[in-house]
């Protein structure tokens, strides 16, 4: 969703793509005062939600979060994110219509709402603007990455793109349809035999019944095994040491003894195979970084006073 909205924002801002460089304006806004009552409200909200008393560290974090939102809110105004924002306008109209008895035009509702300052103390509008400001900061100056950048990123993040393990093995099957309640006993007997006698898996499966789903599985994801044999079978296969027969495992079909011959380790594919996904992940990580840097810069421009 975020990605979606990010893309939209660029157009949304459109022609109002200007940088707020007016020194006087900056000077006026460079101080943020956090009152004790605001701090108390933050702390009590936190304590109500978490049911834990706020420590000093938490308190500082809450204040910092509040300051960050305030900075974003102010910056959003400077960047012109408030004008011609139909979502805000609708919100203001709704609020104004709620408090006013008169039948007013949309324009008049918006004008009166702004005059009453309904926009500046509205938590929804504040959140929305802070959110949009984040989108804007994270998107600013974005360009498609070069091949080198993508390669370097992939090299540093390979584990994120690893493919899950694949399992190859066998199962000896004891059909419940054929054996009813004796399936489990038969499986236990066979299991004991496999303890004492070394049987090739092709031979071992002959200790059981014909499995309608086949007696061998090749290169399967755990989820594929779960879809056909059930969760229990898949879980055992996932954790079973290679080359070792499992204890009897019950499924709706009967009882199984599993052998995993090979478990491919998680493996990152060649970049060419998943380039599109890597580029998408790269862009998203760049955006996070861009936002963090921008926030740091902005934060440095503000003086924060906790009264």
């Amino acid at each position: 969703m975020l990605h979606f909205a990010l893309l939209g924002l660029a157009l949304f801002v459109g022609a109002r793509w200007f940088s707020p460089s007016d020194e006087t304006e900056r000077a006026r806004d460079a101080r943020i005062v956090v009152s004790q009552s605001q701090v108390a409200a933050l702390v009590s909200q936190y304590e109500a939600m978490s049911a834990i008393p706020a420590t000093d560290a938490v308190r500082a974090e809450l204040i910092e979060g509040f300051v960050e939102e305030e900075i974003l809110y102010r910056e959003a105004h400077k960047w012109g994110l408030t004008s011609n924002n139909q979502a805000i306008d609708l919100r203001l109209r709704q609020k104004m219509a709620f408090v006013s008895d008169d039948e007013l035009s949309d324009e008049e509702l918006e004008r009166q709402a702004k005059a009453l300052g309904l926009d500046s103390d509205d938590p929804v509008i504040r959140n929305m603007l802070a959110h949009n400001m984040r989108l804007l900061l994270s998107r600013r100056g974005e360009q498609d990455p070069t091949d080198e950048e993508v390669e370097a990123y992939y090299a540093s993040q390979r584990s994120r793109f690893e493919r899950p393990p694949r399992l190859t093995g066998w199962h000896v099957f004891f059909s419940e349809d054929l054996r009813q309640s004796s399936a489990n006993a038969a499986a236990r007997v066979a299991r004991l035999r496999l303890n004492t006698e070394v049987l090739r898996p092709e031979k071992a499966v002959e200790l059981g019944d014909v499995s309608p789903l086949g007696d061998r599985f090749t290169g399967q994801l755990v989820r594929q095994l779960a879809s056909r044999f059930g969760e229990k079978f898949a879980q055992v296969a996932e954790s079973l040491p290679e080359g070792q027969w499992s204890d009897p495992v019950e499924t709706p079909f009967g009882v199984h003894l599993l052998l995993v011959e090979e478990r491919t380790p998680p493996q990152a594919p060649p970049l060419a195979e998943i380039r599109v996904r890597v580029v998408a992940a790269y862009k998203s990580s760049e955006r996070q970084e861009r936002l963090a840097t921008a926030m740091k810069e902005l934060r440095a421009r503000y003086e924060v006073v906790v009264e």
Partner: protein
Amino acid sequence: MTIRSFVATASPFLAFAFSVALIGCDDSPDSGSCPDSASAEECVVPPDACPDRNPLRNPYVGELHVHTAYSFDSILAGVTASPRDMYRFAQGESLALPPFAPGSAQRTTQLRRPLDFAAATDHAEFFGEFRVCTIPGYDGFDSDFCQRYREQIEVAQDADLLREPGSPLPQVFIDIALKLAVPAPTRFPLCGTDNEDCIAETSMVWEDEQAAAEEFNDRCAFTTFAAYEWTGNPGGANIHRNVIFRNDTVPALPTSYIEAPKPQQLWSALDSECLSGLPGCDVLSIPHSSNFSQGLMFEPTNADGSPLSKEDAEFRAAIEPLVEIHQHKGNSECKVGVLTNDEDCGFETYEKVGILDPPDPGVFVPPLSFVRNGLKEGLVQDEAVGANPFEFGFVGASDTHNATAGATHEGDYRNTGHIGALDWEPRRLLYFLAASGMESNGGGLAIVWAEENSRDAIFDAMKRREVYATSGTRPTLRFFGGWNMPSDACDSPDSVEIADQNGVPMGGTLAVRLGEPSAPRFFVSAQQDPGPPGEPGTPLERIQIVKGWVDSDGNAQEKVFDVAGGDRTADVDINTCETSGSGYASLCTVWPDPEFVPAQRAFYYARTFENPVCRWSTMLCNELGVDCGDIDNVPEDFVECCSPIIEDQKVIKERAWSSPIWYRPETL
């Protein structure tokens, strides 16, 4: 309004500046041949086989009918999820569902079992208009229609603003529905000179759909397809098609009902812009919800009403190899009393004739609204012109408008619904089912028998129809037909290999057998769904084979044969939903057609049933404590629990349908 609602408003914005330009040599491993201009190292060699590659094919579970916030009826229902959110959901991540305000309304949902493949099939109609409506600066932005459109998006995200069930549909919905119901549709008058604004914006949505599919296609593990839905309802007849592309070589723009108000025009656009006009492009069109097509879905005529020629029939069969037989707006296989007395045809029926009609239980629906009758008509056509236009394999799908691909679990459906805020709470879901007749169940799945989980393997399997439909669960179903199928094939550890060697798989055709006459023999094997984690699956009840043929008078006939199982008893208590009795974990048989006549062309498909369980509505109405015997004390919100549509369908048997195997009394 919340943050999220703003995001939704902004969500259709998609800046061209940021869209990923996929140019030059295509590096998708599944891509076809390289362009001539590309040098050797620019082009990727064919990929290695997947680790689970299996010449006897693996079953991959997915679906090809999912709507995201790019569909007008999703976003107008408060849905904000993008195609990317949908793909994440399909792979097992959780997703937030509308309404998003107030806080008490917030809910999330997650698949119990991830899918192997999925495609977003957003309504291609008005892609551009709806973006114009959300981007200030376009002339159309301030139009009345756009204002109402934006307002409804806000309303749908906030439970406090939602209209009561039963109030008239928002005007904006009606405006759009009417546009899609006229035979010569036009754009909304907000597209600028020569519709330039809307066309430009359409291409951005389409590019983003493609980019999302590319980002999430994970060869060997999770397959995606670029796709859209063509949404024609002329005169209220639902003749919708999902258009699915093989890979990332696709036409520049989708073809919607606006550009192509007849299916034949859609196919010819797909032919000229893809099949024969764009090297490397391949596409298929999947009709769905024929059950309220007013009998038009399988009309054996051309756009001008003229009868099909052999070439017409061949073209149609090639571009439409599959049909969606089951989804949330009801089952399309067959209906009791409509050229059949098969009692199992009363499953998840959607009691109306066309999309704009009110629900009308027991209403007569034109025969060619049902797949089985379409298949029979196909045989008649084959007899007449020498080619079968309706050689359909079967898929199931959800048609969810929540971007929740694969959300077909019976129990989950009662909690999540499929249409955003419109069916988000019990009284709304019940209303949607019974009074408005908008949807009826959690829908189905498509299970594809493919060598591996890659675009080419799955697309090829769909084209050869080696695919089956389920009503939402995951039984395994295999079906082969041949002249020499060994009668003991089921007993062998290599049964599938034997069946494969001695026959054609589901979707195939048996040609006439020269020499000594004998009946075709069908290997059919089914295993129960083992169930999602922590929940036992339901055992199988039986397997049937449904045969259709053309008799010596040229009339289509049908008959249902019980071929395996069916002699154990099982029941479900409709008050507690507890099941009792027994069924089969696995069934297999080799069935020779006892009534085979070599001169009669025929189709055969397998159908397997699970033991009976409570329908979602029964679970829900029980939970709500509704007692229809004491109707005066049923809360008004839940009276729909006692409507005939719900009362008559307390118990269901989940099922799977194999694609047919055809017999043609001609040589191949």
